[in-house]
């Protein structure tokens, strides 16, 4: 009976023992008349009892087998799910959104500006007059014919010059929005401008002719370089965890003093490794106190207000954060790359 592991086995056993034609127990009953009369009674009752026992056992076995079977409507829960397709936010936009969140929480107005610009906003007002050698630092792409640029500031009501009337170039940095904003609104200023910028750089491991930047600008009474440092430290820790920062003197025409900002290398903890090229530090952005010439260009009183600004490429941050060693991966849009980032 124990060997019967399916309904079929039970049926076979039933047939073998109880079949009307050829069952073994049936055969015993059929043999009854051939026995001497005095034995028939006892034989008959013993065979009947046995038959009842066998029937009960078969029924019990059948019931046990039925109980072990999955109930109607059962499913194999180990089969693959019916997936709904799910995409990903691009890693550069994930970093951008994270930066937007950090600054929103710090009370910054996050806003976008036009990607095509004019010379005044992109260069001249940022203390880079025509023929300034610093223009070589940002090789510019020019338009063959001027066009109207994108709008900005609609959320602040009617903004004069909310559109570039005759854009002649692709902006080389988001700093152009410093000028547009300050020319429109009086201090204090606390803005974050994320967006795409363009430079005449060939594609290689670390350069693309278009990349994502963000720019922070704070102007008001009594804004100091210490405020800049505190803000940068907050940003660095939000992005990279428990890191230290280091400011190194540098040069940008639109800030004075100017500083490159490094974060301590997380890969080695600052002792030097291949990621940080042995220095223990990784350069993440450029910063400085807004140059008085810039404040003057927008009509601010440099005796009353001061400010800081900083900006960087989102790619650089994303490469450090995610361990990406070829910037071009961000622009191939290969799904096998994109799906590695959190949904």
């Amino acid at each position, binding site marked *: 009976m124990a060997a019967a592991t399916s309904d079929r086995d039970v049926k076979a056993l039933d047939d073998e023992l109880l079949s009307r034609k050829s069952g073994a127990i049936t055969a015993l009953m059929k043999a009854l008349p051939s026995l001497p009369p005095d034995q028939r009674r006892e034989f008959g009752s013993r065979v009947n009892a046995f038959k009842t026992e066998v029937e009960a056992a078969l029924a019990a076995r059948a019931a046990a087998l039925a109980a072990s079977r999955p109930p109607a409507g059962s499913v194999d829960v180990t089969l693959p799910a019916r997936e709904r*397709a799910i995409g990903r936010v691009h890693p550069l936009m994930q970093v951008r959104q994270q930066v937007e969140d950090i600054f929103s929480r710090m009370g910054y*107005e996050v806003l*976008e500006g036009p990607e095509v610009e004019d010379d005044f906003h992109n260069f001249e007002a940022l203390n880079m007059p025509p023929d300034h050698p610093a223009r070589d*630092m940002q090789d510019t792409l020019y*338009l*063959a014919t001027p066009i109207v640029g994108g709008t900005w500031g*609609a959320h602040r009501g009617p903004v004069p010059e909310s559109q570039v009337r005759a854009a002649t170039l692709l902006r080389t940095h988001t700093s152009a929005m410093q000028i547009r904003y300050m020319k429109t609104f009086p201090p204090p200023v606390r803005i974050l401008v994320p967006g795409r910028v363009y430079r005449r750089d060939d594609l290689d491991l670390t350069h693309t002719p278009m990349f994502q930047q963000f720019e922070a600008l704070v102007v008001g009474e009594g804004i100091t370089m210490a405020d800049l440092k505190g*803000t940068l430290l907050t940003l660095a820790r939000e992005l990279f965890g428990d890191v230290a920062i280091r400011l190194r*003197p540098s040069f940008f025409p639109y800030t004075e*003093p100017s500083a490159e900002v490094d974060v301590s290398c997380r890969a080695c903890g600052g002792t030097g490794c291949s990621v940080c090229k042995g220095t223990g530090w990784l350069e993440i952005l450029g910063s400085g106190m807004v140059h008085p010439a810039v404040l003057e260009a927008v009509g601010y009183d440099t005796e009353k207000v001061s400010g800081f600004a900083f900006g960087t490429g989102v790619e650089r941050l994303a490469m450090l954060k995610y361990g990406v060693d070829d910037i071009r991966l961000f622009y191939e849009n290969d799904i096998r790359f994109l799906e590695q980032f959190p949904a």
Partner: protein
Amino acid sequence: MKVPYSWLRELTDVSAPAADVAATMSVRGFAVEGIDLQPDGDAVLDFEVTANRPDCMSVRGLAREVATAFGLPLREVPSLAELRDGPTPAVSIDIERPDLCPRYVGALATVAVGSSPDWLQTRLRACGVRPINNVVDVTNYVLLELGQPMHAFDLTRLSGPAIRVRTARPGETLRTLDGQERKLAPDMLVIADAEGATAVAGVMGGADSEVGPSTTRILLESAYFNPLSVRRTSKALGLKTEASMRFERGADPALPARAMARACAILREIGAGSADGTILDCHPAPPSARRLRLRRARLAGLLGVAVPDDDVARILDALGFALTPTADGWDVDVPTARVDVAREVDVIEEVARHHGFDKIPSTFPALTVPPPPSDPRVAQARHLRDLLTGAGFFEAVTFGFIGQQAAQPFGASDDLVALANPLSETFAVLRPSLLPGLLDGIGHNRRREQADVRLFEIGARFGKAAGERRALAFAWTGAADPPHWSAAPSPVTFFDAKAVVERVALALTVPVVVEPHEADYLVKGQSAAVVCGGQRLGMVGRVAPAVAEHHGIPREDVVFVAEIDLDAAVAHTRAATRVDPLPRFPSVSRDIALLVDDTLPAATLRHTIRIAAPPTLVQVREFDRYQGKGIPEGKLSLAVRLTFRSVERTLTDAEVQTAVDAVLGAVRTQHGAVQR
């Protein structure tokens, strides 16, 4: 700027290991990009000099910075003081354009051209300069040591002893030292003899007056040229030299005479020759000394930390500034070499740099006014990203410029915005649409075993007429749903793409309708416009096979795309949400199957039904569409569910039947549609 450590130590007694000097100078504004150990045990430090510090494109300038950083004295470079006392040389210098050449120092020398001594050659090589001969090497040595570009002319190859500093004559040409024949423009400053130009001022000398083995007498030039003039000339000629790089950033106007004395001293020291008499210093426009005010309060106010007076004085003095104390700070006389220091804040930077940025504390700017709201476009982009990733799309980021040919089907050719100086043909025009970039992305993935690809992008697109506009676009190829064992895969259709468009419109709170419309890049009969209030906001449809193929997608692949002008949508967004009360009475539905012409758009039929029905008709929904057996040629059966509801009471069967009869009557008379 490569500097041998031994050379630095000639000017200041720095004793720290080269690596320590590098580490210190990196936080003083001069990053060291590498340290190269020499066979003789010397180390060459490669300093990165920012564009504002031409004074540090010299060993002496960097030595001053090192001395300041390490608190050490700086030694002066020895020169020949007695040069000033000799007889006036037999050469005349006429500066026609003192605005472009405020100072020109000349000297004559008798020389024996040969090789420089080993020590000199070694130094030049360490700095990355190829030794030529002793005379040229001396000019290069002084350039490296002091930062003053110099030039030596072979006097016998000049036409006469009269030098003119003038702009080029129309059509004038010059063969420069690199052997190139240069066409000179009339705004270019040249050094000329009686015959013509012999050097491009501040950029490169002429080949005809080049110092060679047979040269015996030279004219040495040490001048100050206008930065802008040199920069323009250098750019126009496409000729960047050690000299032009220094002049265009701003040389030290006080340096030419000292550099000349230094050059003559070295010539004599190495036995290469000696000056004939004194030097000629034509100085028609002497520079005025700059005096700036440095206020103690301003210094502390900008840095956020007070710097002790002693430190201010020590740092500025070491950098060569002269200080006079005033009531609220100092008057500061700026050394002539420091062309970058033009206002108070520049002096503050000098103090901050050497005081150490690490001594500035970390504070946080006070919020003094309520923060203004952020640009809603930022939040909108996030909303759209969430919606589209939830719908299975990967966000792509593609370049803002594309090839002319790729752009063509997506924008009228006279509307494309070309770049004046594109990097290459593939980046020649600003994208008129986000779709070419997305199709490139589809093609890229398609070639990498990815058959099911959904991409979207949010970004700017450009046209001459409309200018810069923000748009959202998506592209979808392959299956409508991820493969599953329970069902056969079904490919993406127009209606999958339309559903995404409608969800986007819902997110934008813009009511849109989708109407037949053709576009060059879409397949006829499978393309539509997305319209709101009569204005076309975008397109949706199947990509034409030829266009797909251009982006590396097989012709037979089905790709659906859509693009929405986000800037145009803004004008149609619903202002605010007002909630309707929930229905209090039950609805009644009736299904009707209509036999209609197969060319009749569903929207037209739906419109007729809505007009014919009473206001209790709250929804019309097509739920089955059949063509084939039992349906005549040119006809199809469309099953429509009509839902009625009153806000006042429960509708009676008779009322509903009357409404359905009205609908049936209208579709019969207007479209010849009969109930099956």
